[in-house]
């Protein structure tokens, strides 16, 4: 009986197997590395219409986050300031600077400055700023070191596992409420005690965030 398969076919199966394992492993590694929010979102830094710098305003001038994002501790939504908020100071400071031309125009005409939104959870996620900020969760945990940024960059993945990691162990992150906007605070605090005293119980059931 003639041979149906040539001799090299003996090695075909292990070779193909090896190739499949190799390709499979690398493809899996690629998917976990590239197709999760840790890659797709982190680092996003769109060009903004006005070269506004948090480093100058927050770090150097010491303006509190809430001066501009004034709804952050009172509602779910942290607002981007209106041009009038900038003009509180820039009606006197740098009042003819070309970098602020768009702010002055917006203030005069009422046409909003087209800031590009950076942080965005999907619309089926219920998120709320005030519940976090009023429970001693600092901006830095979810937005990174904004106070050091000349241009805002997406620093954390904001994925579901990111939220849950903290909801399962809030004592790692919690701090006294009056320090939430001090992003560079490095002090020590007994997190377990605070969680116990304030009865902090971040929900872990689906309906906490999907309602």
């Amino acid at each position, binding site marked *: 009986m003639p041979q149906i398969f040539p001799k090299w076919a003996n090695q075909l199966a292990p070779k193909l197997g090896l190739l499949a394992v190799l390709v499979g492993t690398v493809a899996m590694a690629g998917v976990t590395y590239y197709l999760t929010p840790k890659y797709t979102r982190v680092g996003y830094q769109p060009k903004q219409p006005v070269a506004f710098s948090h480093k100058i305003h927050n770090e150097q001038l010491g303006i509190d986050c809430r001066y501009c994002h004034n709804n952050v501790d009172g509602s779910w939504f942290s607002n981007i300031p209106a041009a009038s908020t900038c003009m509180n100071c820039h*009606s006197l400071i740098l009042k003819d600077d070309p970098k602020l031309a768009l702010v002055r125009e917006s203030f005069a005409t009422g046409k909003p400055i087209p800031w590009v939104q950076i942080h965005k959870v999907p619309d089926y996620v219920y998120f709320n700023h005030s519940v976090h900020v009023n429970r001693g969760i600092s901006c830095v945990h979810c937005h990174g070191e904004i106070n050091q940024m000349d241009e805002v960059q997406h620093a954390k993945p904001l994925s579901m596992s990111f939220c849950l990691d903290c909801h399962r162990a809030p004592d790692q992150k919690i701090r006294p409420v009056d320090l939430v906007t001090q992003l560079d605070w490095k002090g020590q605090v007994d997190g377990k005690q605070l969680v116990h005293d304030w009865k902090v119980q971040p929900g872990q059931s689906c309906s906490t965030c999907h309602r």
Partner: protein
Amino acid sequence: MFEKIALFFLSLLGSRFKVTVGLFALTVVAVVSVAGFRGSATRRTPIELFPDMDRQPKLRPQTASAFAAFADGRSSRTVPVGTVAQRRGFSENAYWEDNAFNTGKDNGAFVEVGPLPVTAEFLARGQQRFNIYCQPCHGAQADGNGGITKKLGMSTVANLMDPRIIKMNDGEIFNTITHGKATMMGYATQVPPEDRWAIIAYVRALQLSRLGFEADVPAPELAKLKK
């Protein structure tokens, strides 16, 4: 170690297989060089892999809206003139602007003292809000020496320890916070009325601390201070 095992496997294999593996390795290198690493800065809008119900046609605050009734094209509406935003759990403010709590004026005259009871909590709130909204210009001591005044071109900032302001009615200060005065702009959008009254109470406390007499301090507290 790892290399040795890899080489051993490769030595087993024919040249065609090596080419295949080589091409595969090349593809991986190409992908990594195009796609880069996690966390590197990028101007590209993040891709949404499964855009299931990520973006729904509902309106979010501060976005554009094509709804015909919103002539200015904004999703966030502005407050109609003369009305007051209602906040849950806060019964003091009436529906219309026209009362002492919302304007600092009673029948056209500035009220002398604020309408809310001053408690330790209220003062603490005032201190916190003062340090957020007023301190950059007026300074933590309210003496007009905030961080951005002298060196950076805000030369007109008022000293709130000035006798003129000490004598001023609470209502007039309320009016200044609401609408601004001369070169200071209004803070009505950033500071709601109850916080404005809290800030005023705190400013009064600061003034007292600067200008009070020894006899004003209760004896036990004074003993502590003298130590």
